């Protein structure tokens, strides 16, 4: 029950906030629904494609290709590729997370991951046109020209502080080779919460493979 509440916490909070609004401000209620609807439609257009691409990258793109073009040794070329991928992608910043995470897992460097996320969010050709039409070309151009070096500084800074391992350790343990040997029944007889947790415990040396009742049987 508590886990369920935790999982749906944002929806619950949003529901409470929005559906109490008519009591004191009916206009804001409809406005809130309208804005939310706009967000939601934008997301429905983009997210299925994003998720499919991320999952396909996980499945098909060979590690070596990503390491070569986006890895630590990819140099200036890797940064340029990262800027290009980011700025040609569609969708808001949260759409960037699944894709960049897949790339990072396949060997892209932390710095290039930051470049892709940031340019995904900020550097957009369509947005540039909208921005210059509303705020003037000199405003938009200056902001873009300042943003590119800023992104490079950010990527350098973040990659100095955060290591790949600090981002990936849990996720990489998901691909724990031990896990493949397990039946995936999540029975919990071994004392771990599920097969995944058990696989991690085996990896750490806290448990041995034969603690699994299914493996012990065979």
């Amino acid at each position: 029950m508590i886990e369920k509440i935790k999982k749906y916490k944002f929806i619950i909070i949003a529901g409470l906030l929005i559906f109490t609004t008519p009591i004191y401000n009916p206009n804001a209620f409809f406005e809130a629904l309208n804005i939310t609807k706009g967000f939601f439609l934008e997301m429905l257009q983009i997210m299925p494609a994003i998720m499919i691409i991320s999952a396909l990258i996980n499945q098909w793109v060979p590690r070596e290709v990503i390491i070569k073009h986006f890895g630590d040794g990819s140099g200036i070329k890797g940064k340029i590729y990262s800027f290009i991928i980011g700025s040609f992608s569609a969708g808001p910043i949260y759409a960037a997370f699944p894709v960049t995470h897949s790339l990072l897992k396949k060997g892209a460097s932390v710095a290039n991951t930051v470049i892709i996320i940031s340019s995904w969010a900020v550097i957009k050709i369509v947005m540039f046109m909208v921005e210059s039409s509303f705020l003037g070309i000199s405003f938009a151009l200056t902001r873009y020209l300042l943003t590119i070096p800023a992104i490079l500084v950010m990527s350098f800074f973040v990659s100095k502080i955060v290591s790949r391992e600090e981002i990936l350790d849990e996720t990489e343990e998901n691909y724990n080779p031990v896990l493949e040997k397990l039946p995936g029944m999540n029975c919990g007889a071994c004392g771990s919460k599920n097969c995944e947790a058990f696989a991690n415990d085996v990896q750490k040396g806290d448990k041995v493979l034969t603690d699994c009742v299914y493996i012990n049987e065979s």
Partner: protein
Amino acid sequence: MTTILLIFGAGGFLAWSFKKDVTKTKDTLKNALVMMKEMLIEIVGIMAIIGWVLAIIPESYIRNLLGSANEFVSTLWGALIGTVTIIPAFIAFPLSKSLYTSGANLTAIAAFITTLTMVGFATFPIEKKYFKKKFSIVRNITAFFMAIIIAILMGVIL
């Protein structure tokens, strides 16, 4: 436009994948579905909260904050408001323009637009899910300061 390209790109990639290996592709799609579901649960609530905040706060209030006589204070406000909200571009730019013509500072607007896109307080829970706490905190804080630097430089240049 880019959205259409994206959808076609995903479709093409998917078709190629199906041709290569049907069962693997089916598994991949299942993964995508699970990922999508997880994300939906999180994002729908966040969006609704932001929609509510945007509806409840009158525009004149934001205008006052960004148009404050003290340029530094208004820039800070611009950066902060941009940080905590996500506003789609088609609302953000017209809003910025009306803010500017009604007296908001240029640096404040620049800070607002830059943090709006680059810093994601609202999307932090999602970022954390994929990249863990440390990366998300470091990235967002650096992006915030970079946005302020960009805004200040713009004030100097323009």
